[in-house]
């Protein structure tokens, strides 16, 4: 009997360790929080207006995207103490990927401004080549996009090692609401070890790090979630009477694929970003029926960015379902 109890104890301890390693809520605590949440309406009905202290901390460390489907896949939202990877397929999609990263930063910022007077700035660590190919972040455009330009600081280190150092120092200082590290392709010097190091640093500081991989392949990293972002045609601008203005370009839209998550199946969704409300909204895919990873006809060859190794051989034929290596 006692032996069984000891074994159970060991098992729980191991589960807790695993949960801690994986960055998930510790099972026992999560269960307790869940119960408390379930109790809440009853308690409110009984007249106790006190909210539980565990609740806001749970919410604070997550950034919900605001789309139920995505948030469910993310288990509540993007973790704010971890590394999240945002990937574009080629450098010409850099605008869409930067847009998604900045939209998340703007969301985070908008939320922070409700709560505290102090707004931490956002740090953008640019990659030299990506900056040359895709341009510098433009403060006024970023202002139009929903993020205050004064809140943006841009670092342009010459070497990748310096960029990693800046990212680590920025996370360690905890002075930034979010650090966006732009990397082009899959550099050999930014492998699993480095990403693990950054992820741990983000965890310790409790600050998010968005790794913006421009034109890179999927690779093993310690990011909890990885998105791939492709541009999508925008909806037309809506008119006050409910119709749309033909031929106009409305809110920017992205085709978002959650490539890596605890959910094994990749999830694709097209979102548009409303800069004024700082909110994402789903876009129906009627005019964009392509599978993720598959491109519509275009005139240029679909070449990946030249990383430090040659492109892998393309699979022959077309895969109808689960068209990617998850």
């Amino acid at each position, binding site marked *: 009997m006692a032996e069984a109890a000891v074994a159970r104890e060991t098992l729980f301890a191991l589960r807790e360790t695993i949960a801690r390693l994986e960055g998930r809520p510790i099972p026992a605590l999560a269960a307790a929080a869940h119960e408390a949440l379930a109790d809440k309406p009853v308690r409110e009905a009984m007249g106790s207006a006190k909210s539980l202290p565990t609740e806001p901390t749970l919410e604070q460390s997550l950034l919900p995207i605001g789309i139920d489907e995505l948030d469910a896949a993310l288990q509540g939202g993007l973790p704010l103490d971890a590394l999240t990877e945002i990937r574009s397929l080629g450098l*010409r*999609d*850099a*605008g*869409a990927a*930067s*847009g*998604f990263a*900045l*939209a998340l930063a703007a969301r985070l910022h908008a939320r922070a401004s409700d709560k505290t*007077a*102090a707004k*931490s*700035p956002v740090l953008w660590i640019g990659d030299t080549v990506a900056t*040359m190919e*895709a*341009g*510098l*972040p*433009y*403060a*006024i*455009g970023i*202002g*139009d*996009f929903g993020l205050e*330009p*004064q809140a*943006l*600081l*841009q*670092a*342009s*280190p*010459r070497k990748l090692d*310096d960029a990693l150092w*800046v990212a680590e*120092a*920025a996370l360690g*200082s*905890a*002075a*930034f609401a979010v650090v966006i590290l732009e990397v082009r392709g899959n550099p050999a010097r930014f492998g699993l070890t480095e990403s693990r190091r950054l992820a741990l640093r983000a965890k310790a500081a409790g600050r998010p790090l968005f790794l913006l991989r421009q034109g890179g392949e999927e690779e093993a990293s310690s990011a909890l979630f990885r998105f791939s972002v*492709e*541009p999508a*045609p*925008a909806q037309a601008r809506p008119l006050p009477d409910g119709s749309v203005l033909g*031929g*106009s*370009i409305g809110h*920017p839209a*992205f*085709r978002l694929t959650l490539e890596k998550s605890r959910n094994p199946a990749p999830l694709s969704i097209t979102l548009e*970003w409303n800069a004024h409300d700082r909110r994402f909204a789903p876009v129906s895919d009627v005019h*964009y029926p392509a599978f993720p990873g598959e*491109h*519509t006809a*275009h*005139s*240029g060859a679909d070449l990946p960015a030249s990383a430090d190794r040659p492109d892998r051989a393309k699979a022959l034929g077309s895969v109808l379902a689960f068209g990617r290596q998850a």
Partner: protein
Amino acid sequence: MRLTAINERAEMIGLKQGQGVAEAKAICPDLDVVEEDPVADRKLLEAIADWCDRYTPLVAIDGKDGLFLDITGCAHLFGGEEALLEDILIRISRLGFDVRGAISSAPGLSWAVARFDESRIVPPEAMEEALAPLPVACLRLGEEIVAALQKMGLKQVGDLLAAPRAPLARRFGAQLMLRLDQAVGLVEEPISPRRPVAQLSAERRLAEPVQAEEDILQLARQLAETLKPGLEARGVGGRSFELLLFRVDGAVFRIAAGASQPLREPNRIASLFTERFGAIHNDLDVGYGFEIIRLNVLQHASFDAMQGDFVGEDRQEGSLAAFVDRVAARLGPDCLQGFELRQSHIPERAVRSLPAMAILASKRRTGEKDAGHGFFRGERPLRLFRMPELVETIAAEVPDGPPRQFRWRRVMHRVSRAEGPERLSAEWWVEEKEEPARDYFQVEDEEGHRFWLFRKGLYGRGGTTPDWYMHGVFA
């Protein structure tokens, strides 16, 4: 080819400065002639001047082979003027130089005594006596004047001092009288120090040279602690610091570091140098170690003491400033930039990147205030190219429509929708030559990429078709 400098042995043989090389070789066939390298000589002299910083911060270079040191108020630190002069002469000669020096109340007199007399100290009351027996060449005059004076029989300065001034001035010009007055101290002569004098400085002379980086940083921290009361008394904090490391063999290293906020805290000051050491690690040749370490405060700014609040807001600001300083110390002040909006409708001119240090400093000074944009404008792209890139357009709507297709970076894009034009005229009050107006379009291609294109100029003006450029990408 002539001899510009000779060593002691050559002097003994009878060679002279200014002698032709052929003649000198005739006198001494196995003469070793080395070509003069004025740049290297200058560098050496500057290195010695740096080295002399240990005696006084006011060191000026004089000509090709001299240094002026203003030791006002410094001599007592070395046990009086005599001890100071002896110390300088012994140390420099140990470094392997033939050196002469003199201390007096006038730079001109010191110059004359050091070059034409033995190394000694001239007391203020004996200035004229010391000068009188020296040749007139000691007055730093032009060669013609010296030759003319000698022709007149005025060979020594004493002759000049005794002669009536007016005829001398009429004959040889004001220069002679000025030099004479400077030499006897009647006219004040300033020296021009090579470097600005530090606002505050603290130094440590070590009995045993230090080599390890940690030791140096530890000493820097101690020096910063020494400086703290001085900064507090003035009500300031340092913005720009300099760490001087005097190596045992005479080399001097200067390591500068800036801060975005006025600093007093020794740990923060030391951490600036920690980053600098990380950056210059390979350039710092420790050699046999450093014997003197000095910390200078080059610039300071008023230190508005901040009271901590309960929210911890200022702590966060402080950590941002510390981060900015770390990055600036390690990767240079331009690595981290912030943006300042300006009143301009030309896209590239409407935003100015400033070093983050400057942004933080200006925010502290003026509060957060930015130039807004008063005019209506279209949406701006998320990323802007440093230089607009030329694109090849096909079937653009004439006269003022967007292109149907364009080729950018060798990829053809089919435009499915476009918004525009937004016409931005050049700012004639800024530019010198008139630039054509730009018509901006936001276009979306069939895949959903959104670009910002512009046409420079109008169709049908000047006979050439206007070019199209890519200026940015939208999300």
